[in-house]
């Protein structure tokens, strides 16, 4: 509710929104009183407007009691500071009555259901993911995180169009330095930028622009967000995506699945160890193949060395070309099956994986052992629970491969050390990247 003056009316009439076909301007007359109703039909709930505004207007004895009724409505919001056109875009209905303007959030939500988590799948954990509607996400978090210290801060990005976000944190345990830094990063976002996904925002707010390894985590699991909030981290929701950005995030976080906490102690640790083995294989196996077959075959048992030599005999190209060729095929398969509709996807992988693999060996393009290695590399990559780390490691193995091709097994060792060095000097909002968070397991009160 605010006083209506000529400027605000003029501003509204000048706004391009009035020329849109879903813009509704209704003048209602009753008992000599008149109100003007302004809203966007596309995002407002017509029935609710009829029920909550139009009918009471005709039932009211005089305009004064109708205005009193309007003031009592819960949905009324005083979004001071924003212009009338902005309120309309947000999905509010405006009622101009006399010299006063009332606005109501009567937004029709398109998607109210919450889908199952299908990016980070858990076996025994909660099954639901976040929704694309921010209010629903807040609802989910509130009901899971029943602490009065849970705080939401809504805001709008300086993007074009302006995207709504909200910062979530537990006021009691949050690291305020991190919180301030994130707020500052969000404010610093440049204009002329379309932000439609959490990943995009994550990329924009990270300090190092061209980094391979993620320093903030993007997750669709409410349980993970709750866990991270309790550890004093900060989550950011972007309107329109079912993902939350969680910061700070270190290497260890990217290697842990929520199931680790839900299963028994030994099975959880076994899975964790398995994941690190998978990571190691994924990074180094292709490089080991090149290094061992082309530089140091004495490293292998003689039986294996001879069998590799035998299976490589029909291959005319050096080992690294063989490896790059097969890895490329594998990447194409993976990429194709992600983008394809699910029904065609399985056919593509079957055709590609089975037929290509056998045919390539029979044609003498690659060796038998190579097929095993490529399969192992591909599978071990999927062991990593968080997508961004998976993609990072997918790229990283080519770096390893390049260095090994140039310098042999010694190069592989040095590349591995180099990766560790890179990790140690990396940090996420002041947290060392390679730190194994012991504090992860307990709630910290700062």
């Amino acid at each position, binding site marked *: 509710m605010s006083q209506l003056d000529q400027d605000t009316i003029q501003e509204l009439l000048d706004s391009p929104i009035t020329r849109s076909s879903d813009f509704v301007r209704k003048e209602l007359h009753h008992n000599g009183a008149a109100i003007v109703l302004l809203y966007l039909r596309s995002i407002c709930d017509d029935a609710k407007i009829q029920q909550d505004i139009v009918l009471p207007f005709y039932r009211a004895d005089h305009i004064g009691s109708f205005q009193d009724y309007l003031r009592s409505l819960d949905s009324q919001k005083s979004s001071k500071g924003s212009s009338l056109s902005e309120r309309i875009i947000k999905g509010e209905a405006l009622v101009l009555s006399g010299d006063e303007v009332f606005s109501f959030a009567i937004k029709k939500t398109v998607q109210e259901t919450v889908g199952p988590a299908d990016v980070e799948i858990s076996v025994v954990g909660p099954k639901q993911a976040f929704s694309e509607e921010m209010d629903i996400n807040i609802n989910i978090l509130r009901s899971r995180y029943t602490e009065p210290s849970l705080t939401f801060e809504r805001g709008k990005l300086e993007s074009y169009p302006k995207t709504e976000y909200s910062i979530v944190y537990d006021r009691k345990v949050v690291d305020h330095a991190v919180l301030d830094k994130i707020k500052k990063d969000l404010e610093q976002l440049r204009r002329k930028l379309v932000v439609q996904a959490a990943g995009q925002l994550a990329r924009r707010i990270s300090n190092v622009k061209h980094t391979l390894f993620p320093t903030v985590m993007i997750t669709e699991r409410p349980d993970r967000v709750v866990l991270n909030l309790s550890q004093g981290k900060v989550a950011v929701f972007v309107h329109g995506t079912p993902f939350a950005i969680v910061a700070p995030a270190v290497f260890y976080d990217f290697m842990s699945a929520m199931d680790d906490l839900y299963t028994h102690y030994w099975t959880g640790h076994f899975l964790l160890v398995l994941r690190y083995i998978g990571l190691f294989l994924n990074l180094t196996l292709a490089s080991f193949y090149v290094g*061992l*077959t*082309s*530089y*140091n*075959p*004495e490293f292998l048992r*003689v*039986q294996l*060395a*001879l*069998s*590799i*030599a*035998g*299976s*490589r*005999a*029909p*291959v005319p190209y*050096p*080992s690294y070309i063989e490896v790059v060729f097969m890895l490329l095929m594998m990447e194409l398969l993976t990429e194709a099956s992600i983008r394809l509709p699910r029904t065609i996807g399985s056919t593509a992988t079957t055709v590609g994986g089975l037929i290509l693999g056998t045919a390539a060996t029979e044609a003498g393009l690659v060796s*038998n052992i190579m097929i095993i290695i490529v399969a192992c590399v591909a599978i071990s990559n999927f062991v990593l629970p968080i997508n961004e780390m998976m993609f990072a490691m997918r790229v990283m193995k080519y770096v390893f491969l390049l260095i090994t*091709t*140039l*310098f*042999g097994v*010694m*190069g592989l060792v*040095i590349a591995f050390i180099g990766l560790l060095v890179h990790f140690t000097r990396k940090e996420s909002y002041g947290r060392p990247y390679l730190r194994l968070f012991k504090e992860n397991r307990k709630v910290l009160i700062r």
Partner: protein
Amino acid sequence: MILRRLLTVLLAIAAAGSLNGCGFKDIDKRFFVVAMAVDPADNPDKLYKVTVKLAIPSPSERFGSNDYTIVSEETDSIAEAVRVIKSEVDKELDLGHMKAIVIGQKLVEQGNMNKLMDWFIRRRDIQNIAWIAAGNPSGKAVLDLRPHTERLPSNMLFMSFGQFGTETAYIVSEYLFDFHRRLKERGLDPLLPIIEVRDNQQVSINRSIILDKERQRIVLQALDNKVVNSFYQGIGKYDIRVDLNDGFFIIAAENCKGTFTLNTRNGKAVIHLYVRVNGIVEESTVPLSKEKLSMYERAAEQQVNKRVLSLFYKLQQAKVDPIGFGLRYRARHTGNPDQVWRDWLRLYPEAEFKVQSKVKLMSTGQIE
């Protein structure tokens, strides 16, 4: 800033490139030398005939897929021979898997082992992995064998010596580095298993040669070989024949371990040999009863004592010491090392051996 970083990376790559030790060579462009033999040369002007066995890899390994090719060269030195052989094959020789060295027995009889070993012990890629043996009738004959059960060329030798496959106390396996050590060490003499070629592409490896520091001194037959091995490697899988009044039985030993202590008393060396045997009766020509197990044990002990004693007196007479009594003596006596060594040389021919064996029979092997 980016340019500087790029420059640093490029420099690092260039610098690392210059450090590159072994070059890029695909595994199918290499010839793996799986075994090497050295024999006396047929040509009287040359010293050695060096033979290498090159594995020809096959895409699918089956029994009998042990393709290989043999290349021989006669020269005065092994290094030369290897270089010449390189010019006779189409792929790069890779010695990284050369795990068997076979010296022709004639060469071992001739002696001069120290000079022969020089090349082998300098090669960084084989000095820690190769086994060494003597070949009868010649090293080349041993290499040029194609047992039907092999999946890879020379795999039989690797399996026998590594005790990956067959486990038996008859095979003494000797690593190159240990052989070299024994050639140099005073008080510990080298031994070499003998690989004998038999008919039908088979071999037998149950005898061994004991050398002094230069040449062959004594050939141990299978039974003696077994006893030496119990002191040397402590491998079980040992059989002992025990004669009774009315027949004999055979003990299959699960483990058999020999140790010794060395005392000098009144200017005389006394060597106590202890042999511990655990086993079961595997074959018998007479009925055995469980109650009399301890009696059988005593009989077996006497048998073991007799056999061990006869072996060690034989070694003593040949003036060789593969077990390392001399080394033990040198380790336990202070003074001028040369003087200690001379003392031992004086003591050893008159040393007295005493054997104490302990046989433990688990069962008679019968179901009662």
